[in-house]
């Protein structure tokens, strides 16, 4: 048995995870794995290390591989460092038809990075994602918990300018 990783869990994150665990039947702690990964990721500057995933596995009494499966499956978990702001651009069908290609090339030009890249100041990273369910406002992108819809180059510029 590898050594315990539980010391990596802050009291604050632990409390948050516990409120999620409480929502599920007692013998199904592992149902909280997605919430737990999100909480731990947020506390770690937006990405997950292997140690942190092992820690979640230990805390929820799961096999580490089961946690890796979840973390590699969903696009909202990051396994490499990201910028302070993660821009997720939808390039799925509705957004594509409404001009997401232009949105993407504008962002790439302006930031000087491609998908998966981070600006040199570590402020912004760019990610291509599938449909986020906001087709009515296509083309769209997401930063943090906020959706930005009906994008134009000017709108993107002002969004970027407002990022701290």
């Amino acid at each position, binding site marked *: 048995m590898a050594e315990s990783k539980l010391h990596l869990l802050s009291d604050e994150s632990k409390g948050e995870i516990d409120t999620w665990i409480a929502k599920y039947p007692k013998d199904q702690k592992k149902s909280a794995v997605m919430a737990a990964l999100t909480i731990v990721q947020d506390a770690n500057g937006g990405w997950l290390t*292997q140690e942190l995933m092992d820690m979640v596995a230990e805390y929820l009494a799961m096999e*580490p591989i089961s946690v*890796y*499966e979840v973390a*590699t499956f969903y696009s909202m978990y990051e396994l490499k460092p990201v910028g302070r702001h993660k821009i997720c651009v939808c390039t799925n069908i509705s957004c594509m038809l409404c001009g997401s290609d232009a949105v993407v090339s504008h962002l790439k030009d302006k930031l000087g990075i491609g998908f998966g890249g981070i600006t040199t100041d570590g402020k912004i990273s760019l990610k291509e994602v599938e449909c986020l369910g906001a087709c009515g406002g296509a083309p769209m992108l997401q930063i943090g918990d906020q959706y930005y819809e009906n994008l134009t180059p000017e709108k993107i510029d002002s969004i970027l300018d407002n990022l701290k």
Partner: protein
Amino acid sequence: MINIEIDGLKIEAQDGAMLIEAADEVGISIPRFCYHKKLSVAANCRMCLVDVEKAAKPLPACATPVTEGMKVFTQSQKAISAQKGVMEFLLINHPLDCPICDQGGECDLQDLAVGYGGGETRYSENKRVVKNKNIGSLIATDMTRCIHCTRCVRFGEEIAGVRELGAIGRGEHMEIGTYVASTISSELSGNMIDLCPVGALTSKPFRYSARNWEMQRHPSIAGHDCVGSNIDLDVRDNNIMRVVPRENEEINETWISDRDRFSYEGLNSKDRLTAPMIKQSGEWQRVSWDTALAFALNGVKELVGRHGAEHLGTLVSPSATLEEMYLLQKLVRGLGSSNIDHRVRQLDFSDQNRAPAFPYLGQSIESLGQSDAVLLVGANITKDQPILGHRVRQAALFGAKVMCVNSVDYKVNMPLAEKLITDVAGMEAALAGILKALLNMNKIAAPSGIDQLLHSVSISATHEKMAANLSKASHGSVLLGLSAASHPAYSTLYALAECIAELSGAKLGSLSLGANSAGAWLSGAVPHRTADSASSNQTSAGLNAIQMFTAPRKGYFLFGIEPEFDSVDPVVTTQSLKDAEFVVAFSSYASTVLSDVANVFLPISPYTETSGTFVNVEGRWQSFKGVVSPQEDTRPAWKILRVLGNLFELKGFDYMSSIEVRDELKKCLGDIKLSNKRAWLCPELSGNISEQIVEIPIYGADAITRRAVSLSITPDATGHTIVMN
């Protein structure tokens, strides 16, 4: 029962059965990759799509339960075109490397592609490439070939009990792997090779060595633990190329342990003894059989003449065949010596006269899997008898309370209801505590002497819980393992376990050493019994496996024994052998120590090269044939013993086949009582114990396994653990 119709055939299916099971039952084959009868249903390959009347779309036969009046068509236009479509998807990324793939010729995908695949591809895009994973010395990976059926993943979780492989990533990027590079540690891992329907997981030791169609398949019995798993040996050019399981629902189902699967590597080891040899003035010489046998004959005759037959000691491997053991004991008893034993790991022989006819599991292997409470005493069942461990684990998953009392905290792959880890000396007190708790709880009269024995024993909460679990159980099992049998106070542990089983209505069982401990007891390879009187005792018992070295003999027969490994005290054993005047070694290997102590080497065939019989822990006699001819000048040991018997001018050594030997023994034994029952005799607590128990490493159990290179570098093969009090 439910009435359905498949391809116009009216059949009755079990309530709750899936379509594919019902079809398999009547021999209608539906193509499949992810479905396996011993694993949970995943329904992710979609190959088994069939046409069901009134269903709008084709349904997966593996995940569609039968319903009354259902009409299924497996060969309709709709079904075939669905299956062809699935096959085309699977082949988009599957490489066309069948000519260099080890699975070629026995590949489900290859076979089904013949029936359902297109002649040419419609895709011009590049195929995806997946990096191979290094998951240890037993399984080779070619992950580009993987079709994501997840059988290996489900096997890990459901059968092996260690979730090591998983599906990493998503969609086109999904890969089967461990995420963090690591070695598969399960003792059943080789079964993933059989399960993999393509060439993604193949056998590493077997890699590139033979093609499926070049080999002949011969049935045999695995010779490395007391389970007697049914196996098939694949042979090419008189060589065992690999070992695969042969299905037997009553014993090993569709599985075998890695030890049974990969130990064949040891058969062609460099130190394999291939010709008779004699040692003269310290020099080993290769000689003819006549010379070697005459040399052995004279040596033994002189020795017996000089010192008497009681100065002859005989040690036989518990993995020798029944026929070999029977003839060997017949030979040495014919010479006038009863100093014969196979219990090379035992320290305490004090209750041998009261022992049952052979160490019996107390029930069938199938029945063990239906236990609802299991108490393991000094047993590392997961590693020592992996197939039995699997049965107990299945019971645990169905809610059985599995508990253990061990002197080592073994890693187990199943949930334990209770666990009691103590030092070697504490084993007695632990069992005594459970027994006392059991008596207190049930207010039953204790067998004579027990009250007094348990007077000063204290009870803990764990003792009470264990006792409660056992008494509540309707099918309890109490099993004594290999480390219990090597315990300095084995007889006491046995008696306490016996009493616990008796009072809680559980079945008492022993897990014995080697492939044929049961056969050794029955055939008389013990100093106090012969086959004529398998359950009664001789008036003058010979010396046991310890005594014949603590009171050194002048001459020894060693049969399949490597003194440095097959002994509880290798130092004393080796010294006694060195000091002896004459040592005859029947062996398949010429190890350094054996070369040092022996005077004559008689090269014997391992179980793959001789006919014989193993009696497993359930008392099941399983005979097998030699599937390859003996290497060079080695000979089946029963033939050597038969000739020796004649040379010594002993009566009754005129067998024409090993079957005659077996049948003579069988006749001699009459009806063997399958029972562990014996008259009650109160044990004594020995208290101060300072001896150590040398654990047998899982891949150090016998001479063949010790030489299997690939097994020796697995995580399980990390040498001896010595437990000291």
